[in-house]
């Protein structure tokens, strides 16, 4: 019993950074922009968040810094792929390399090589009166930091916005047929810019979640593929925020399992466990869990004339 509770706890903790990034990416992709640079942006966010938290002494300032840095990269990305209509895959790939290089370099400049990294002030586990004290359920659902709760609340809000509001309909429409939107007086560029910048802000926060909520430090390349898994979660979750929650739990479970197996020192190859999210995504794409269909105009630049 305890083992199961422990596993679920680990699963949810592992899921959080992927989930935050994925629910942002859903918005970008629904608007027609595929940002495979999520990994790089998460790295920048992780570094910015850690630095902000260290120098201000407040993890909240760290989160703010991560969000702004992500948004800034988002502006650049949006300008390149929306205004200049550059190839999204190429620019996204470049962002990953840029993010790794920038975060690594700045880390060495600011904190030096091999020095003892200062600890950032982290978010502590929130103790909610009554709820956290319920046996089993309390341990399962009410033993996380505040960011995790905020993320789940945001997820529900994002789901409602996307499917129940006029703005959400516009975002979905722009990713399907931008020309039709244009004839209805919708500003395609504005919607796409907004969705992309919002999604990169969340990617930034997702990175900071790793460096200041899960750990209290920054390490080079610490995102370690979670950005790619977040992109997979979007597809696996059929481009809906709630769907990414399911995907996040599955992928987080894979990582939790990997951690447990490593701790148990079995002979089971670690690499195979790491491959689980990607295998699941392939299954999702070929329709094992019901077909996941990408927005029709995804990755297609819109040229007004």
């Amino acid at each position, binding site marked *: 019993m305890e083992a199961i509770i422990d596993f679920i706890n680990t699963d949810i903790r592992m899921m959080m950074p992927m989930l935050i990034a994925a629910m942002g990416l859903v918005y970008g992709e629904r608007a027609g922009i595929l940002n495979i640079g999520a990994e790089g942006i998460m790295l920048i966010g992780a570094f910015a968040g850690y630095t902000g938290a260290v120098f201000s002494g407040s993890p909240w300032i760290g989160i703010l810094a991560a969000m702004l840095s992500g948004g800034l990269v988002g502006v650049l990305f949006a300008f390149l792929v929306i205004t200049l209509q550059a190839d999204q895959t190429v620019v996204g790939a470049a962002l990953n390399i840029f993010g790794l290089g920038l975060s690594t370099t700045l880390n060495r400049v600011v904190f030096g090589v091999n020095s003892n990294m200062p600890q950032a002030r982290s978010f502590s586990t929130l103790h909610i009166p009554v709820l956290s004290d319920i046996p089993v359920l309390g341990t399962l659902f009410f033993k996380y930091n505040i960011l995790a709760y905020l993320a789940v609340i945001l997820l529900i809000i994002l789901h409602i916005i996307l499917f129940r509001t*006029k703005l959400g309909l516009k975002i979905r429409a722009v990713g399907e*047929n931008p020309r039709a*939107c244009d*004839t*209805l*007086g919708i500003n395609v560029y504005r919607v796409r810019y907004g969705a992309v910048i919002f999604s990169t802000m969340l990617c930034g926060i997702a990175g900071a979640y790793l460096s200041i909520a899960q750990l209290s430090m920054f390490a080079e390349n610490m995102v370690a593929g979670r950005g790619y898994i977040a992109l997979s979660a979007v597809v696996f979750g059929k481009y809906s925020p709630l769907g990414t929650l399911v995907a996040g739990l599955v992928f987080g479970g894979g990582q939790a399992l990997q951690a447990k197996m490593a701790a148990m020192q079995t002979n089971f190859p670690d690499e195979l466990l790491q491959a689980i999210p990607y295998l699941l995504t392939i299954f999702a794409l070929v329709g094992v869990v019901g077909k996941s269909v990408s927005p029709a105009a995804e990755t297609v630049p819109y040229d007004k004339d």
Partner: protein
Amino acid sequence: MANALEMKKICKYFSGVRANYNVDLTVRQGEVHALLGENGAGKSTLMNILYGLYSPTSGEVYLEGQKVNITSPEKAIKLGVGMVHQHFMLIPALTAIENVVLGMDEDKSPMLDLTTAAKKLTELAAQYNMELDPNAKVSQLTVGQQQRLEILKALYRGAKLFIFDEPTAVLTPQEVEELFNMFKLLTSEGKTIIFITHKLQEVMSICDRCTVLRLGEVAATVDIADTNKQDLATLMVGKPVSMVYEKADIDPAAQQTILQMENVVAKGTEHGGLKGIDLTIRSGEILGIAGVDGNGQSELVDCITGLMKVESGKVSINGQDMTNAAPKAVLESGVSHIPADRLARGVIMPMNLSENVLLMNTRKKDFLKGMFLQWNKINQYTDGIIKKYKVKTPSRNELIQNLSGGNQQKVVLGREIERNPKLLIAMHPDRGLDIGATSFVQQSIVDERDRGAAVLLVSTELEEIQTLSDRVAVMYEGQIMGIVPPDTPIHEISMMMAGIRYEDIVKEKEASGVGA
């Protein structure tokens, strides 16, 4: 009463190129006003100015007597202008009602209220005798239903002046009739319609007045009651256009059977497929296939060209058994194919003219030296086609996507005909083309027949079928209802298109003849 629309001295230049020059367009309230012109005559530019997609270089627009400055589609919609685009501006992944309310803010609330909107849409649809499930995905609607949805979308936004951009190009004859009934209903309520089309028959039957554009200028505005098809065609092209074709006499004794299909059965993609087709085409004749789209015509063509598997039966070309032969073998046996969907099957848009011409001729010995392409020879050949088929293009290096539909089709036509086919298959060869290009394409097809080719012509336009064919086969649900001479009365052909066999029509006629 003020005119619904007046456009005065509209000029529009695109980087120095003149698209509209001093165009005056006056549309009276409650009329169906046709806007005619060849492709590139400036119709779309003018309508895009009216809809706020382009801003005019100079000129004024008045709606119901008020001077307006339409700077965006949003503003056009607010002023009561609705446009039904030729390529529907719908989002297939969304439902009908989602498409309707998209971009609207009726109740000033951020939330979507689809239930109320759906109710309003259903009421609106009922008011115009339309049936539409507001919650159906657009991808599940037929083309006719999608068009109705486009009309409803404009009505929902309170449109008073409708622009229909070639709405009939994608419709079956029945759907065209329904659309025209809708036109009548709309105008009876005082709404005004601008109708863009290439089909003069339609202009004559539904419109009140007509403005003809030529090379960006108004050639004339005429009352339909005072004109005829030939005059309109002359106005459009600027010189008399021949719409009758002289066919050479073919000596029946010299005719050989080129295509023979015996009891061919094939599974359909969406519809019934083919249910036992018997068909013969001889050299020097055009066999027209009439029928409503989707009654097995594309399956018929695909079974001949090897693109679809024949379940049973036999296809022979020029005496050779070609049942289920590979497309390559079919092409090499002397078959040329002008496909229905030019974009999907006819050309590769981001490639230039030479490359598109080469596609069909990659095995031609002249074009190869070992494994290398002889570009000078290919280019020479392409230049020949450009000249002979009067393709309007800056050069053979132009990407084919930058050519007009008519010129793209001329490239396909040239590529296929220059192979001197024994059997030419042409499916909707002039769909979406203007009068000049249509006349060119049709003449080329007749010339092929005169040269001695067997021609299989598939078209949903009865007029085209009757003008060009030597014999007409009518298809219905994967079967041939009868093969008749081209001068068979239209109502008899229509009956066959609706699924009545010719022999039954004849029996009926004899019976009633006896009765009388």
